[in-house]
């Protein structure tokens, strides 16, 4: 039975729906199916295939990383940030996850007729501040205006070019049994902050988005353990669970998590309980997951914890050989369960 399911899970993805639903944007299974069945199918090329945070390119003697993300978060302003710093940090982080130093960003704005110029200024100011903090320059851009009712105020697409300065081989496919899995801090704060900011559920809690540029902490990690970091992933849409499923699947290993080790702030736990969510699936925008050689896990943890953005880092699990392709959780209760890829949940737009 398990084999049969695994065969099905690995077979060529097919879109059954005739129309795009919100699930296709939620970062879970439906998103993966869409990407694989439509985008990969149409654009198939060796650089795109690995579906990592960005593509690695060669330009003369220099290796580059190149990435893009569109930001459609609602609301545009939320505790801890806004769409502007999200758009800068998100792309900076995808470059950092490739082991690159983020250098140049582009920004494409799609503005809705009627959008307040003052809000646009607030957004560009926070983009400028985020770019300065991340040591990148926004070097090219574009602006389109669409009719009222054809957008939601402001959408931003940023792309980034980074320089890979020390050759590292990072990939979700490089995890091996015995490796350690580390998260850089408490999870789920961005997603929880957005849900509360939407005010759809009448819930209030002192939760702020964790949006932050991760290039600095990643640089220190790579400097400390140049050859023992296997994979880096920022845990955005779909959360830590989704990232680890990608690792398990790409590396053909099992990831075994220990529930008590997973750092979650009590307020995030509270929101998840009230709404029936699992923090493992809730997005972060300033946390990453790294897989490191198990023997250097302690050193990696110490390095992360000495950086302000890694104070709450924790080793949350290990990589095992079997059951390959799956993420398991040892629950605090002493049991074990599978942590599967999210089935498209119609959660609010978070990035």
């Amino acid at each position, binding site marked *: 039975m398990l084999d049969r399911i695994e065969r099905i899970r690995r077979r060529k993805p097919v879109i059954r729906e005739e129309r795009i639903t919100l699930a296709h944007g939620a970062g879970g299974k439906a998103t993966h199916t869409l990407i694989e069945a439509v985008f990969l199918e149409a654009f198939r090329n060796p650089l795109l295939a690995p579906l990592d945070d960005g593509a690695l390119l060669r330009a003369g003697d220099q290796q580059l990383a190149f990435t893009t993300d569109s930001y459609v978060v609602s609301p545009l302003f939320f505790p801890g940030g806004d769409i502007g710093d999200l758009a800068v940090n998100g792309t900076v982080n995808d470059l950092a996850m490739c082991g690159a130093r983020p250098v140049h960003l582009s920004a494409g704005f799609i503005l809705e007729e009627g959008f307040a110029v003052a809000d646009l200024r607030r957004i560009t100011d926070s983009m400028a501040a985020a770019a300065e903090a991340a040591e990148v320059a926004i070097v090219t851009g574009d602006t389109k205006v669409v009719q009222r009712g054809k957008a939601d105020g402001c959408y931003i697409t940023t792309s980034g070019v980074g320089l890979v300065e020390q050759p590292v081989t990072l990939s979700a496919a490089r995890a091996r049994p015995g490796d*350690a899995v580390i998260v850089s801090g408490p999870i789920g704060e961005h997603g929880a902050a957005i849900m509360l900011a939407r005010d759809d559920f009448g819930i209030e809690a002192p939760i702020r988005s964790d949006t932050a540029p991760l290039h600095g902490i990643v640089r220190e990690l790579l400097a400390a353990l140049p050859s023992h970091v296997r994979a880096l992933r920022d845990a955005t849409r779909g959360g830590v669970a989704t990232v680890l499923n990608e690792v398990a699947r790409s590396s053909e290993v099992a990831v075994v998590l220990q529930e008590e080790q997973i750092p979650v702030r009590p307020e995030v736990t509270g929101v998840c309980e009230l709404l029936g969510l699992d923090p493992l699936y809730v997005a972060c925008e300033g946390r990453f997951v790294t897989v490191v050689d198990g023997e250097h*896990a302690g050193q990696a943890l110490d390095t992360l914890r000495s950086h302000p953005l890694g104070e709450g880092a924790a*080793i949350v699990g290990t990589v095992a050989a079997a059951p390959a392709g799956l993420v398991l959780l040892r629950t605090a209760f002493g049991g074990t369960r599978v942590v*599967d890829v999210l089935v*498209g949940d119609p959660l609010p737009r978070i990035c």
Partner: protein
Amino acid sequence: MRFVDEFRDADRARALAARIAESCRPGRTYTFMEVCGGHTHTIYKHGLEDHLPPEVNLVHGPGCPVCVIPMGRVDDAIHIARQPGVIMTSFGDMMRVPGGTGSFLDAKAAGADIRMVYSPLDALKIARANPDRKVVFMAIGFETTAPSTAMTVLRAAEEGLSNFSVFCNHVMIIPAVKAILDSPDLRLDGFIGPGHVSAVIGCQPYEFIARDYGKPLVVAGFEPLDILTSVHMLLTQLAEGRCEVENQYARVVPWHGNRIALSAIGRVMRLRPHFEFRGLGFIAHSALAMADEYAAFDAERVFDLPGVRVADPKSCQCGEVLKGVLKPWECKVFGTACTPETPIGTCMVSSEGACAAYYNFGRFSRDQMRAAAREPLAEEASRA
């Protein structure tokens, strides 16, 4: 006390697991049904079965309201949602439930205005804010949820709201359990009773199960230790030759239930002569409709409904799973044609559905799980 972590303690669980193992009579196996989908969810989410000896076998009952809703009612709800000017409101659980012509999510993608709410009161808020729209609340759930719907309707009536109605699909647990008990192919040794339903109806309504069918029942809470404790209580009854209704969840469940909740249901709703449960067929007196006094709030009267019964897909074995006759993975389409992404049966939709819970959280032999989980954490390894 937070009434949560205290009931998730691994040490207490291990101690209890030892007692449970001791309580099993050698050579005998025990099959208990947890009636409520919330229990199913807890069992898989916490990996509770790792604490049960092989002699104790849990089967998952019909107490997931999303799982028992028949396809025709989903189609009716989508029909309402498609009417001009309608805003359909629904709990998130319903969004992916397939009717004969797709789910709420599909209907929404095709243009219907369907919104997720956390509470029926949020639907009322939407109705107040949109006086020119017709706001319908898709009411589902057992007796746990029915009082909230009833209170919301009473509030709407008090405010004189004329653009709010309820598409009432509330179902009742006792007739569903009775249908299970009456099915010929069933072998159960006892029931883990639904804690939150019981907070409303109390424990007394279950007494016929012990008295007439000779099966013990323990009303249980939703933390994993609650369920383990209830298993121990069931085994103890069996060992001591007792057959009673016991209340493990007395911190929440009063023996006689919630008088105000029951009277709210009684005012706003009336018993339906019969109602279809997916997989179980039509069950007499098993569901609630809006009472005549609140006809103005009854979406079944406000809108013309097609009301077409839709046969379950041939390959669907939800009925057997709901009766505990088949384990989820014994269904022919489990995990292949039927997955949480592409559910054929409703048990694959809600995370309280037995199939979805098993697919998402289980999908492993207990032995494999335990082997994998035996790997030490890397920190332990590297620091050792």
